[in-house]
C-alpha cells in the first residue's frame, strides 16, 4: 500500500486543476450537441446564464472523472474521447488493465477492454441521477482514452431542463429506465405489485420539478395524484384556525397521497416545496389499477389515515412543536442527521461544552456557542451532519468525507490543503478555516478546515453533550418528529 501523498503535492495538483476550472468558452459551448437542444431563439441568452456553471475538463486515460460513493452536483457530457463505467467490484481489475495497457491508441478497440463494463462515447451523459437526487455516485466513471468532458453544475442543469424539452426527456428516460422501478419497489404499497404493473407505472409516471415555495398539493382539494420525492424537500402543513402549522416534511424517498386517492379523500394537508424539488407523480387511475384490488391494503390505509388524524390533533394541541418544525425548515436544520441544540433556560454559560470540545480536538474547539435563537433554544454554529452534505462536493483531496453507512462527516487534517471549498459551500457557515501555525512554501499561513465530527471514535459520544453539567446540550435529528416534540417542549 502506498503512503500518504505529501500535502504540497496535493495542493499543487489542486491549483493546477483550479486553473482549468474556468467557465466554459461561449463559442465552444454553442457548438456542443447538448447546447444545440436549446431553442435557437433563446440559446444565446441561456448560454450567457449557464456559462459560469459549466467547465471543460480533460482527463488522461485511467483518471477517474467521478468515483463511486462521492457526492456530486454535476452532470457530465462527453465532448471527445471515451469513458468506462465501473461498478465498485470492477474497479480493481480495471486498474490492473490500465497499468498493463499499451500507450493510448486512437480508438477504444485498440486495446482489449475488461469484461462487463459499460463504455460511453461522444454525446453521452453521466452523473445526472446523483446530481438531481442528491444521492452518492453509484459507479466510477474513468477515462478510457484522452477524455474531454463538459461539466454542468446543478443550477445550469435545472435551467437547461427547463428550456430544452429534449434534454429533459432524455434525462427522465434514463431515470425511468434505470432507477424509478427500484425506488417504487421501496414504497411498501408497491412491494407486492407484479412486474407488468410496475412497468406500467414506470412508463406512465410523470417527472416534475418544483421551485422553492411552490405548492404541490393544497389541503382540501381533491387528491388525484400520488407523489414520491426524488430530490429536495417538501413541507407538510395543516391549516389550524387560520394558522399554517408545519406537521412534518418529506425527504428523498418519502411519498404522500396514497391514502387519500385510494380512499377517495381530499388532501388532508398542504404539500409545499421547501427548496428545488424533483417529484414523481402517479395519477389516480394508475394507482387504482396497480394496487386497488389488494385485499389487505384498505385496512392498512385506514390505519394510516387515523394515524395522520392523530398527528394533526397533536400539532393542533401543541402548535409550538409546529413552530420548531417551521424554524427547522427555514433554517435548514431538517437537513441535519445530528443537530446540536442548547437549552438556554438551563445553560449556565459555563463553556464546559466548548472546553470539552477543545480537549477532544487537540485544543481547537470545532463549534462556537453562538448562533440563532428560537424561544429558549440556541442553535450553535456546529455542523448538522447533513443527510446531503454539499460540503463534500468539490473537495480536491477527499479530506472531507463520510464513510458509507456512518453519520459523521469528518475532515482528515493531514490531507486537507486549506482550499476552503467546503467552508464556502456549507450553507450554514458551520465549517471554519483555522491557521495551523505553519507557513506554506508561498509564504501564506497554512490553514485547515475544522468542523464538528461528533467526536468520531470517542466511546462516550459527543464531548459537548457529555460534558454539560446541567444536561442543557442535546443532539436531535428532525427525522424523528415525535422525539423532536418531546425534547423541544
Amino acid at each position: 500500500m502506498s503512503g500518504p501523498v505529501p500535502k504540497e503535492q496535493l495542493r499543487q495538483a489542486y491549483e493546477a486543476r483550479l486553473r482549468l476550472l474556468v467557465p466554459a468558452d461561449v463559442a465552444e459551448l454553442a457548438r456542443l450537441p447538448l447546447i444545440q437542444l436549446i431553442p435557437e431563439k433563446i440559446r444565446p441568452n441561456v448560454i450567457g446564464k449557464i456559462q459560469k456553471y459549466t467547465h471543460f475538463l480533460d482527463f488522461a486515460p485511467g483518471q477517474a472523472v467521478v468515483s463511486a460513493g462521492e457526492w456530486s452536483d454535476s452532470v457530465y457530457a462527453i465532448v471527445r474521447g471515451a469513458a468506462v463505467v465501473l461498478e465498485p467490484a470492477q474497479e480493481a481489475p480495471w486498474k490492473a488493465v490500465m497499468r498493463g495497457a499499451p500507450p493510448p491508441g486512437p480508438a477504444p478497440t485498440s486495446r482489449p477492454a475488461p469484461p462487463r463494463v459499460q463504455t460511453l462515447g461522444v454525446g453521452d451523459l453521466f452523473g445526472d441521477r446523483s446530481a438531481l437526487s442528491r444521492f452518492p455516485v453509484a459507479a466510477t466513471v474513468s477515462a478510457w482514452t484522452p477524455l474531454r468532458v463538459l461539466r454542468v453544475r446543478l443550477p445550469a442543469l435545472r435551467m437547461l431542463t427547463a428550456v430544452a424539452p429534449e434534454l429533459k426527456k432524455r434525462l427522465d428516460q434514463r431515470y425511468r429506465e434505470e432507477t424509478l422501478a427500484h425506488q417504487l419497489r421501496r414504497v411498501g404499497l408497491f412491494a407486492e405489485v407484479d412486474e407488468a404493473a410496475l412497468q406500467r407505472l414506470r412508463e406512465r409516471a410523470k417527472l416534475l420539478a418544483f421551485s422553492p415555495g411552490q405548492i404541490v398539493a393544497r389541503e382540501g382539494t381533491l387528491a388525484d395524484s400520488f407523489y414520491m420525492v426524488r430530490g429536495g424537500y417538501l413541507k407538510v402543513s395543516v391549516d389550524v384556525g387560520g394558522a399554517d402549522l408545519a406537521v412534518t416534511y418529506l425527504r428523498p424517498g418519502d411519498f404522500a397521497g396514497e391514502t387519500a386517492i385510494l380512499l377517495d379523500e381530499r388532501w388532508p394537508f398542504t404539500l409545499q416545496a421547501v427548496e428545488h424539488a424533483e417529484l414523481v407523480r402517479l395519477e389516480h387511475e394508475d394507482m387504482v389499477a396497480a394496487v386497488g384490488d389488494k385485499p389487505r391494503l384498505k385496512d392498512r390505509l385506514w390505519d394510516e389515515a387515523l394515524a395522520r388524524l392523530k398527528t394533526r390533533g397533536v400539532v393542533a394541541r401543541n402548535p409550538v412543536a409546529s413552530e420548531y418544525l417551521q424554524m427547522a425548515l427555514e433554517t435548514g436544520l431538517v437537513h441535519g442527521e445530528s443537530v446540536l441544540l442548547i437549552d438556554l433556560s438551563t445553560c449556565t454559560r459555563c463553556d464546559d461544552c466548548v472546553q470539552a470540545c477543545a480537549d477532544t480536538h487537540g485544543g481547537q474547539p470545532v463549534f462556537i456557542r453562538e448562533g440563532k435563537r428560537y424561544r429558549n433554544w440556541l442553535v450553535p454554529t456546529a455542523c448538522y451532519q447533513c443527510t446531503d452534505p454539499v460540503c463534500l462536493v468539490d473537495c480536491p483531496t477527499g479530506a472531507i468525507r463520510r464513510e458509507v453507512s456512518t453519520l459523521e462527516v469528518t475532515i482528515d487534517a493531514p490531507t486537507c490543503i486549506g482550499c476552503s471549498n467546503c467552508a464556502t459551500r456549507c450553507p450554514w457557515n458551520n465549517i471554519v478555516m483555522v491557521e495551523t501555525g505553519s507557513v506554506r512554501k508561498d509564504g501564506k499561513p497554512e490553514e485547515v478546515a475544522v468542523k464538528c465530527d461528533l467526536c468520531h471514535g470517542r466511546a462516550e459520544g459527543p464531548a459537548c453533550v457529555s460534558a454539560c453539567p446541567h444536561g442543557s446540550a442535546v443532539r436531535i435529528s428532525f427525522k424523528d418528529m415525535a422525539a423532536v416534540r418531546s425534547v423541544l417542549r
Partner: protein
Amino acid sequence: MRIAAALRPKQPRVFLASLGVLVLLAAAHAIGLARGRFDPGRGLGLAFGILAAAGYVFAAAYPWRRRAARLAPARFWTQAHVYVGGLAVAAALLHSGFVWPHGLVDTALLLLSGWTTFTGFLGVWLQKGIPARLTEGLRVEVLLERIPELRARVVAAADACIAGAGDVLRRHYRQELRPRLERPHPALSYLIEVRAGRDRALEPLRRLASFVAAPDKARIDDLIGLHIEKLELDAHLTLQRLLRGWLVLHAPPAAVLLGLLAFHVFSALWY
C-alpha cells in the same frame, strides 16, 4: 427570583432518595443516643465522621469529573456533588453530636462546612434561576467575552444614527446618552429583575420626543432600541459574571476545608 421555582429539583427521585438517606442517618443517630453516651471518636460517632470525610473528598473531586466521563456524563457528577456534599455536612453534624467543638481546628472545620454548604446552595439557586431569567426576560443572547465588542457596536450604531440630527437631540446624546452607552453598568438589581431600571433609563429619551421634529422622532425610536440592547448587555454582564463569580465564595473555602479535614483525620489517628 422565585425561590421555590429556582430550587425545584431536576431529578425528584434523587432528591427523595437523598432525603431518605438523611432520615436514615438521623434515625441511626437517635438510636445510638438512646443506647448510651455518644462519642465522636468511637462507634456510631466515628462512623458518621468517616462518612462525612468520604463525602467531602468525593465532593472535592468534582473538578476531575471529565476524567470520569467514561463512567457517567457530567450532569450525573453535578447531581452527585450537590447531594453527596449536602449529606456529608449532615453526617459531619451528626459526628459532632450537635455539640459546639473545642479547639480552633474543629471550630474552623465546622464553620467552613457551614459556609461551603451555604455557598453551595447559593450556587444551586443562582444556576437554576439566572439562566431562566436571562432567557425569558431578554431578547439578546451573548457570550460574556464578546460583550465589550458588542457594546462598541451599539455605540457605533448610535453615532451613525445621530448624524444629521437636530441640536437638541445631538446635545442630549453627547451629554447624557453616549456616556451611558459607552461604559458598562452592571447592577445587582438585575438579579431581582432582568429589566430593572429600564423604564427609568429610557424616560429622558421618550420625553425628548415631544420636543423634536419628525425625523428626530424616528431617530429617537432607533436610539431607544439601541439603549435597550445596551441595557440587556449590562444585564448579561452582571448575571453571567455572577454565574462564574460565585465560585470564588465556594471553591477556595472548600479547599481550605479539605486541608483542615486532612489535619483533623491525621491528628485523630495520631493522637
